[in-house]
């Protein structure tokens, strides 16, 4: 029973309830302040939890006793959960209220807390034009509860439950606070988002039920110790169902179709959370559920998963090359990056998995920053269309476009910035895939993914070229009162610092993920 973890879940949800209960006359500003304080508290709480988790005496880190001879290459199986809460909840259905964290989920929880905090902070000054900031903040807090719950759930049904909790608030966020110029478009985007993800999670639930039928339990700790063996039959069906369900969320090609619309139409904070946190639910689920619970069946489907991921890398990058909307472009870039993560998971190798986990964090930070920047550009120009914004942003908004260039370089995987290590380790994992996987296939996929990395560079450079560079004489200079306002700087600074830190010093995080 860990009160801190429960508090991390309960406090945002309760605050959201309180915010809704407040009289309608309460100012949006107050709501934003409350949201900032609470999410800041959650951030601090998660930091404390993290510190608690990795204290040296704690038995729960996967620290490799090095130089003791090479143990066999293995993957995360048994969960050494920390801060556990394990209460019987619905005994008839064998469902337990089982929470816990380990070194895989903790950084993601912290990332979630950070991004929600920054979004609330951002909302202090900059809010969508639709107003009703109070509800927006409340929904963000609900999303925070759902995401942290998903990351800490150790019971399949509980995982599913928290997974679903995130959906409806995000749907509302897109539908109500989305692109104010395109009412039909944002409604369609929101509906597509919610329908596709609900379909995906329904499929996933079916997979969970099959797992229960085979193993007789929903508990991830138990399942981690006694995984469902066999790479065919019901186990295979379960793995396919769970993989498809999570792939919708991730999203993998060709299930990505909801993503560009949803990201492009969502408000800035919505896009940031959607890309920074929600997509991670899919990849986290794959690492947490697919690999430990159904190892043999996952090995059977891994080549296909890797294939689709590689197609996602290439297709996402190619689609970016032909985009004319900056938010849509960044959204498609997420498809490519999540493709990398999918490839890393599909390699089933320690390197690939560590890479996938690292890329998860890095993508959350960098794409969050990119969406903040794109939101800033959109707010200033009242459109996110590249042709309408015009070129030569370097001349009009030098700092903002400089930051955009920085974020683009980080996102394309420049070594020395956060995006690199994940991609590098994933490619390394593909070079050196798990023992039961066909190596040649993965070598081919590695080469294709490498070319995809070049394409990634190509579209980001194209974005910089079309947006930031250009002859100022051809583009009427619009006067902007502020280049980068103070609140923007405060909100973005942590992300920038983290991008550089994670790029230069990957060891702290990588040490958590030395699977063996």
């Amino acid at each position: 029973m860990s009160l801190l973890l429960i508090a991390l879940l309960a406090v945002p949800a309760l605050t959201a309830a309180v915010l809704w209960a407040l009289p309608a006359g309460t100012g949006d500003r107050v709501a934003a302040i409350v949201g900032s304080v609470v999410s800041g508290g959650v951030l601090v709480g998660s930091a404390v939890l993290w510190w608690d988790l990795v204290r040296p005496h704690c038995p729960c880190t996967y620290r490799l006793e090095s130089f003791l001879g090479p143990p066999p290459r293995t993957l995360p199986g048994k969960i050494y959960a920390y801060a556990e809460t394990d209460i019987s909840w619905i005994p008839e259905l064998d469902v337990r209220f089982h929470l816990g964290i380990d070194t895989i989920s903790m950084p993601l929880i912290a990332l979630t807390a950070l991004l929600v905090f920054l979004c609330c902070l951002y909302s202090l000054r900059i809010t969508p034009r639709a107003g009703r900031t109070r509800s927006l903040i409340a929904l963000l807090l609900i999303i925070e509860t759902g995401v942290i719950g998903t990351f800490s759930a150790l019971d399949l049904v509980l995982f599913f439950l928290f997974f679903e909790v995130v959906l409806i608030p995000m749907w509302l966020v897109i539908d109500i606070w989305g692109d104010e110029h395109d009412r039909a478009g944002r409604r369609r985007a929101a509906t597509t988002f919610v329908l596709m993800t609900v379909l995906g999670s329904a499929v996933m639930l079916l997979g969970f039920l099959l797992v229960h039928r085979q193993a007789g339990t929903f508990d991830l700790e138990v399942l981690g110790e006694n995984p469902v063996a066999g790479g065919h039959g019901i186990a295979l069906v379960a793995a396919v169902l769970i993989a498809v369900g999570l792939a919708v969320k991730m999203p993998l090609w060709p299930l990505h179709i909801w993503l560009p619309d949803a990201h492009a139409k969502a408000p800035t904070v919505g896009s940031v959370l959607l890309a920074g946190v929600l997509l991670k639910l899919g990849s986290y689920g794959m690492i947490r559920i697919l690999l430990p619970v159904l190892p043999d069946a996952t090995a059977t489907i891994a080549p296909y998963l890797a294939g689709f991921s590689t197609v996602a890398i290439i297709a996402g990058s190619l689609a970016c090359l032909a985009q004319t909307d900056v938010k849509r472009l960044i959204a498609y870039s997420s498809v490519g990056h999540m493709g990398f993560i999918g490839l890393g998971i599909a390699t089933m190798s320690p390197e690939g998995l560590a890479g996938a986990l690292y890329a998860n964090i890095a993508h959350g930070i960098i794409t969050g920053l990119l969406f903040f920047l794109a939101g800033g550009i959109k707010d200033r120009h009242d459109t996110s269309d590249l042709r309408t914004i015009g070129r030569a942003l370097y001349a009009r908004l030098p700092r903002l476009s400089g930051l955009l260039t920085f974020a683009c370089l980080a996102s394309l995987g420049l070594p020395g910035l956060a995006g690199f290590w994940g991609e590098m380790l994933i490619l390394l994992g593909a070079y050196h895939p798990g023992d039961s996987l066909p190596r040649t296939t993965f070598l081919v996929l590695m080469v294709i993914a490498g070319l995809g990395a070049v394409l990634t560079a190509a579209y980001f450079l194209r974005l910089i070229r079309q947006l930031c560079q250009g002859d100022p004489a051809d583009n009427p200079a619009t006067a902007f009162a502020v280049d980068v306002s103070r609140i923007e700087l405060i909100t973005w600074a942590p992300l920038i610092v983290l991008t550089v830190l994670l790029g230069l010093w990957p060891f702290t995080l990588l040490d958590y993920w030395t699977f063996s």
Partner: protein
Amino acid sequence: MIATAWRVVGVGFSLLVILAAGLLYGVDPQQTAFGGSFVGNDVFITYDLRTDDLTVLLLAVVGVVSACVQLYSIGYLNERVASYTALVTLFTLSMVTVVVSDSLFLLLIGWELMGACSYLLIGHYWERRDARSGAMKAFLMTRLGDVGFLFGIFVLGLGYDTFKISELGDSPISPGALTTGTLLILVGVIGKSAQVPLQTWLPDAMPGPSPVSALIHAATMVAAGVFLIARLYDVFLAAETTLTVLAVVACVTMLFAAFCAMAAVEVKRVLAWSTVSQLAIMFAGLSLGTDDGRHAALFHLLTHAAFKGLLFLCAGVLLHQVGSAAFVVLRRYTRRGALRKRMPVTFVTMTIGLAALAGVPGFAGFFSKDSVVEAAWHHARDGSTVGWIVLVSVCLTAALTAFYCVRLWLWVFFRTPALAGALGAFEDDDPMADLEEPDSSKLHEGSWLMLAPLIVLALGAVGLGYADGLHLNWAIALATTVLAVFGALPAYSLWRRGADPRPVVLEREFGVDPAYQRVLVVPVEWLARLTVGGDRDVIGAYVRATGRAGVLASAGFRKLQTGNVQTYLTAAVVGVVALAILAGVIGS
């Protein structure tokens, strides 16, 4: 204010690098590790630093050139100084990282950061279309090579079971992995050093500020490729095939680039092609696989850094004072004799640089080129085909180099008696040719802040030739001199006649760029449109169709609700009958 601070930081950092080189000189080779974590059991990622002779040599080169460039930039650049200086400093820092790194990953960080910095610096004048596309091209082509480099790191690192450069080669590795790994590393080197077939980005990178070009060509970016092979020489020595491939690439590149330089009509473009060609000479030296060859290549790297840095800075002065480095513009001044008279320091230092490049006896380039030829000759004498190929192509390149150096020198600085003051061969298709006569009276020499680096580097371009100790193989020296003269004479006679025949195939640089455009860029753009269309019209159509199908199905089911009681009743009775039959079937 910020700009000044950055300038101080930039110059200070360059001086620090020189100081470090001085302190490390003569120190025993050593390595330091910091950081590090296991990923799985096979991969141990660390940051390691090392120092040895190679490090010191490169640190000195980088420090001096970047100090010169930083100082020069103070006079050269007036706008967007802060970002520019910061990036140049970061550029230098990246190269230093590459040089001192003993970890393949740390090296890769520096290696690619250089690419990013060069991208940003080439695009410094982002108002200009050619700068934009040149920058993008530079980054993409080098990144394409870098992907190969990354894979090469995987193959070698996992093959040798270490990612430390100093430990590579200690453990056995399968020959296949060795060849594959070194070939992949070579891909990265080819991209970075602009060798065939990834050569086209370097000439197109010329719209960047001239000091940046000097930095890229003399000390950082392109030199990093040569450095890397020298650093991994033990590994490469074991891979016979890779060295042969390197030799072929180098020989093709040096001739290719020399030919392209012969037809270029802009000073910086000529210099860019000459860099490609000179780098190829260094690679040729390395590809011999002998200690002599490596030594000669590094020697050439050193002298090349001096005279190529010098030449680019001179071109920068021309560009800064005249406004363009195109032959056609420069000749407007030249035909009045203005250029030489008004800019004496530039003229003299540029002459020294060109002499060094052309291999005029006594200048630095002469000695270093000869040492490559000599190493090739020794190798060829031992019965090596590679040696012969290298020997022949370096000699041919020497002649071609002399040709384009003399051509550049004469056409830029001297009046053509035969043309009696006309612009000559360069006005054909240049829109600038119709402009009115420039006011040459305002033309004057650059500031001393710009000239001082020129003089320093000019001293290097002369003096560095003797740095290696004067050992001269007289036969080879004579042969290369004769070849240089053979190259120079046609250039002179053409200039005398006021003719500059430029074969179309050379002027178009063998049509490589348009071919890449057709084979790579156009299909990728086409594919991009196809993907977007596919998303919208295929995948999106499925999604929309699912929605429509739902609506249609519900509309269809709604039709069943006719409102007619008897229909409902009929349906109910039919249902009862069906259930009865079912019950009967199951029951029996």
